[in-house]
């Protein structure tokens, strides 16, 4: 059972649709007990960093998410990926979940269209079990104006957009983050979610 954390932010239905399509058992939940009982967790998110952290906290889920992320496969998507880091700087400085060292900063790329929106190619960094089947010449769908700033040792894939934009981060254990939307990235995205489901023991 994969728990999709429903804290009032993000396009949770798209994530659910993709898991349903893959026949991966899942539930939308905001109950700490269900998150504790789940075999894996997905943290979706769209919107602004401080607002999402606040919603998570108001839902009483911050602590349980932090604790459970270290025990079982955990995937943050888009803003959910950015929330994995220690700090965000969207409008104001704001603490993140601190599951992966690093911060989230506004993309400053003169002459480039921001948001970074559309299909961009994955370039690979550290080995990551979610990317074991994705191969070369693989494109995924991004929509974001902020990006993670973290050590290369946590970057499993990046996209080139006036420099490296972290696309998939991984703590080497249980915590994964996708800046792109696997649920909107066609066959590649489905394959990544399938690999995530495959981590369930």
């Amino acid at each position, binding site marked *: 059972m994969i728990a999709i954390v429903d804290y009032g932010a993000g*396009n949770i*239905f*798209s994530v659910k*649709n*993709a898991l*349903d*399509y893959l026949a991966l058992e899942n539930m939308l939940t905001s109950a700490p007990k269900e998150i504790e009982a789940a075999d894996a967790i997905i943290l979706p998110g*769209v*919107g602004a960093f401080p607002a999402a952290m606040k919603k998570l906290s108001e839902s009483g889920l911050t602590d349980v998410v932090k604790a459970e992320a270290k025990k079982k496969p955990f995937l943050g998507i888009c803003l959910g990926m950015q929330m994995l880091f220690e700090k965000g700087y969207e409008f104001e400085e704001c603490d993140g979940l601190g599951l992966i060292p690093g911060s989230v900063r506004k993309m400053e790329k003169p002459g480039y*269209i*921001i*948001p*970074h*929106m*559309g*299909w*961009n*190619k994955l370039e690979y960094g550290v080995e990551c079990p979610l990317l074991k089947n994705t191969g070369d010449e693989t*494109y995924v*769908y991004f*929509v974001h104006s902020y990006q993670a700033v973290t050590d290369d040792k946590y970057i499993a894939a990046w996209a*080139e*957009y006036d420099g490296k934009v972290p696309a998939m981060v991984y703590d080497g254990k249980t915590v994964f983050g996708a800046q792109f939307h696997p*649920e*909107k*990235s*066609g*066959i590649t*995205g*489905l394959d990544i979610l399938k690999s995530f489901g495959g981590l369930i023991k």
Partner: protein
Amino acid sequence: MLAKRIIPCLDVRDGKVVKGVKFEGVRDVGDPVALAEIYNKQGADEIVFYDITASYEKRGVMLDVVSETAKRVFVPLTVGGGISTVYDIRAALRAGADKVSVNSQAVRNPQLIKHGADSFGSQCICVGIDAKKVANGKWTVYINGGRVDTGLDLIDWVKQIEQLGAGEICLNSIDADGTKEGFDLPMLRAVCGAVGIPVIASGGAGKIEDFSQVFEETGATAALAASLFHFGELTVGDVKEHCRSKGIIVR
């Protein structure tokens, strides 16, 4: 680098695709969900549903189409046509759309763009524009399906749209639309030079070279076509292969 996007558009009335289609293996040629799946298999980067339903009461049918498509097609989906209020935007997004395209109503009530962007994020607000040339280097914006000239200057309008928080512009040339003589390159160049948000080229595509040309000669980040794909004259895959052969980055 970002890939240039190829976007097929489906015109839908009362939940059915308008105009006949000929695709192998499809029984109900009017089923927009089936057609969206075909485009998805061809490699469409996004899919646009354009609702031309006349009666307001039947608009709910479009949301069912989107919701069914979202269960089977995992690329961004856009809904356009008849989006008049923030409530309509919310309903489309809840049904599974990733973006909405607002057109006439945005001209009548520009705050719709701002309210939509503030509530749901700029990334999901695309503003569709129908524009027509009035003089060299000058175009005006039309509404109501290209029937009413508002007199609004195109360049003034796109700058205003960007200020209001739109995430994207879908620019349709009334002069080029239906001619099959290629996209309206001067108009696209003018708009791409005036704003910093992505611009989708629409109207006029008639042959495969039109797509590579619009990417080579304008700043458009995506190209949209309806009937060309709809009647099977070209597939999305054909267009991408051609663009790739010209050194254009596509997915």
